[in-house]
């Protein structure tokens, strides 16, 4: 066992690359995922179809195949990517597809009453998105998106197969050099665990406590811009429900309470 620990520094180098790759890919896949989600709800059928097709294809094929395709196949079509770039691109595209499903579900779960209030107040589409949809959706979305970030972190392990020098890559070299292969991989597994497990615990904690704090948070921030919060507070105070015109999606009445 001590035999393996002497190689610690190189594994740590790889671990840092793993974390860096995750940190770069995360904002990218979130933004792209949001864009794709909005694309799927676009009024233009062509955009809807392209976005939907992209999501179905990406979700229906293994990440490894997508990774290999971007790294090995694209050069034959003229686009050569460096391993790191190909890896980050693959992670971004793959997880953006999953994120778009999460965003789509979150946006569609906004009670239509709030959207009606926004329309009555004359808020444009962008402002509606920013002030009405996103704040509410954000609280619901952080747990699933957080889980996706952890998935990205675990998926970076595959980048070693296109020679990105993250921790698995170093571990593969070490397995060839030493005779302590199982120990090396246990160390690697341990690294992933000590990063992933606290993150999971944190997300579960947030999931349990955010729901309670959500109701308070909006009225805390009643300010000169927050007409929508005023509307919602007013509706709550006056006992209005969101079911006057259309059926409220199930599971959202808990937020209105």
């Amino acid at each position, binding site marked *: 066992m001590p035999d393996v620990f002497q190689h610690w520094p190189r594994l740590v180098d790889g671990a840092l690359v793993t974390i860096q790759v995750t940190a770069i890919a995360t904002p990218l896949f979130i933004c792209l995922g949001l864009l794709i989600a909005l694309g799927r709800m676009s009024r233009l059928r062509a955009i809807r179809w392209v976005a939907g097709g992209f999501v179905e294809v990406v979700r229906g094929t293994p990440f490894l*195949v997508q990774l290999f395709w971007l790294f*090995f196949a694209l050069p*034959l079509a003229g686009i050569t990517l460096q391993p790191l770039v190909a890896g980050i691109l693959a992670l971004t595209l793959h997880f953006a597809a999953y994120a778009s499903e999460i965003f789509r579900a979150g946006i569609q779960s906004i009670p239509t009453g709030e959207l009606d209030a926004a329309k009555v107040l004359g808020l444009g589409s962008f402002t509606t998105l920013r002030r009405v949809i996103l704040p509410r959706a954000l609280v619901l979305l952080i747990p699933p998106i957080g889980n996706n970030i952890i998935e990205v972190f675990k998926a970076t392990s595959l980048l070693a197969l296109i020679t990105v020098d993250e921790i698995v890559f170093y571990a*593969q070299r070490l397995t060839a050099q030493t005779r302590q292969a199982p120990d090396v991989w246990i160390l690697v597994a341990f690294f992933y665990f000590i990063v992933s497990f606290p993150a*999971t615990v944190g997300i579960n904690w947030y999931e349990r406590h955010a729901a309670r704090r959500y109701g308070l948070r909006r009225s805390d921030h009643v300010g000169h811009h927050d007409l929508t919060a005023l509307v919602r507070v007013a509706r709550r105070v006056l006992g209005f429900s969101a079911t006057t015109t259309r059926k409220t999606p199930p599971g959202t009445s808990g937020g209105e309470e």
Partner: protein
Amino acid sequence: MIERVGGYLPSLIAGAGLTLKLTISAMLLASVLGLALAVVRFVRTPFVAWLVPAYVTVVRNTPELVQLYLFFYALPAWGINVGAFQTATLVLGLHFAASLAEVYRGGIASIDQGQWEAAIVLGLPKRKQWTRIILPQVFRRIIPAWGNYVTVMVKVTALTSVITVPELTLVGNDIAARNFRFLEVFTLVGIIYFLINFPLSLIVRHAERRLARSEVTGKAGR
């Protein structure tokens, strides 16, 4: 180009066949083991009740690739010499057992307390309570989630190519490297995976809709 690519198809189909074989074997192991883990959690032996969440947590917070490598090297080191396919089945089965254990747990927890009370009132012993009343309802409820994991499993089998399992990805990699036709072969591999997974996901969505409908209209579900 099409004719050349057509020549690769038989080998790719053979690889896809192994992908499906691996999916079925691993799903079988994972379903049985996952059910055992979930049930054990509800049968309140303090020591064992701690083991199951620990197992699930460790397995789910580690990448499948690392688990594959670990068992690939560790099993021979411990004197267990099985083939790559068996190792892959074992690792994937163990990994997905953890995920399915959570699915079963959710399903079991969602059973109305009244069902348990009825079973007890009817004088059924513990085992019959489970097999006659609770589990049949649990199985019906978790079908969408379970089906979803089947599609996930199909995609994860691609990872076993690093453990030299000759499934679709490894076969594709091999052919592409030998003939230097990465673009066509990998596109074809992607299409084959999609052709396997897309119908599966449609079935899952259909099952989800039918189950949601029957839950609303009542147990008879008509």
